[in-house]
């Protein structure tokens, strides 16, 4: 048998028969390359597991708590920024929409429908591409428009409400976790 077959036995970690094992041992006495490979295999198999310093889990829990705190701070900062920008934009634009702000919901709906009809007329004036929307504004009765807007407003309100609830849930969970980790410590 040639050197490559023995090398392949060593590299493939093949289970050898007693006869093959004897043959390999014989070869290892004469082949430095295969002997080095066998030695490397033995050293690798004898290598122990390195163990972390005591208190690894406690250190992990502290790190997790610190990460959660940082995440909460980031979320709060992000939400505050959005809120500040939103309020600023609203304050800047408020005078422009004073009519809308002081109107009753019925008046608002009437204004929106008028605006849509105007938009439809404008599109009709632009060309054939606007015909479809113009037809829609004429064909769809005003109460359907009002219902659609109410539906959109409902969805928006639901979204705002659920995101607030979710934020509160995360905060409550964060507090309870902080309390638990405090107890464990």
């Amino acid at each position: 048998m040639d050197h490559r077959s023995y090398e392949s036995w060593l590299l493939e970690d093949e289970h050898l028969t007693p006869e093959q094992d004897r043959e390999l041992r014989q070869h290892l006495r004469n082949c430095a390359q295969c002997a080095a490979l066998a030695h490397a295999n033995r050293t690798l198999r004898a290598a122990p597991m390195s163990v972390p310093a005591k208190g690894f889990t406690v250190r992990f829990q502290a790190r997790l708590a610190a990460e959660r705190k940082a995440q909460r701070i980031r979320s709060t900062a992000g939400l505050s920024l959005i809120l500040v920008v939103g309020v600023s934009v609203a304050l800047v634009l408020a005078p422009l929409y004073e009519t809308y702000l002081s109107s009753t919901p019925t008046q608002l709906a009437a204004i929106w429908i008028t605006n849509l009809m105007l938009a439809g007329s404008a599109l009709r004036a632009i060309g054939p591409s606007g015909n479809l929307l113009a037809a829609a504004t004429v064909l769809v009765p005003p109460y359907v428009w009002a219902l659609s807007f109410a539906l959109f407003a409902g969805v928006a309100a639901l979204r705002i409400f659920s995101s607030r609830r979710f934020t509160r849930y995360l905060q409550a969970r964060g507090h309870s976790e902080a309390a638990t980790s405090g107890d464990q410590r």
Partner: protein
Amino acid sequence: MNEELALVLQAQQGDDDAFAQLVERYQTPVYNLCYRMLGEDEAAEDAAQESFLRVYRNLARFDRQRSFATWLLSITAHYCIDCLRRRKFTMISIDAERDDDERPMELPDVEALNPEQETVRHEEQAALQRVLQQLDATDRAAVVLRYWYDFSEIEISQSLSLTVSAVKSRLHRARRELARRLQAGSSEARVERMPYGSPVL
């Protein structure tokens, strides 16, 4: 359902105590993989902690058909490979020069049955750790998963996102390299032990 899967399910539902039990259970395998990959205690501790954090963040994505240990070690191995790649770009290449000076010296166990044999074993393990650090990051991960965790070639290929034939060739190459370097190291050590004598004698 086995205990481990039950803990994973509890952890997925937000039970932090269950996750802490998983950390307790797997801290040694994860730490050992990091230590064998990165070669330093401090870096290994940091990488092991970060790997558990990644696992925690991605718990919802865990496929219950897979073994949790394989998934965990796969995340750890990928993280260590990324660390080594980043280190390659940010550090001056002194890795080849580094020996085990940074690690507290492992003294032979004087109470061991054969202290001389114990010393040889320590030297061999220190040499292995040094030589391991000179392998390519992915080759190193394949060798560690193979020898410390008894992963099959298929498991290694799944863990490291490689083909089975790529794993096979990487393992062959890495072991030839390890054998060559270990042999070179032991010949140098023999010469060092008799600095005033002729190597021939």
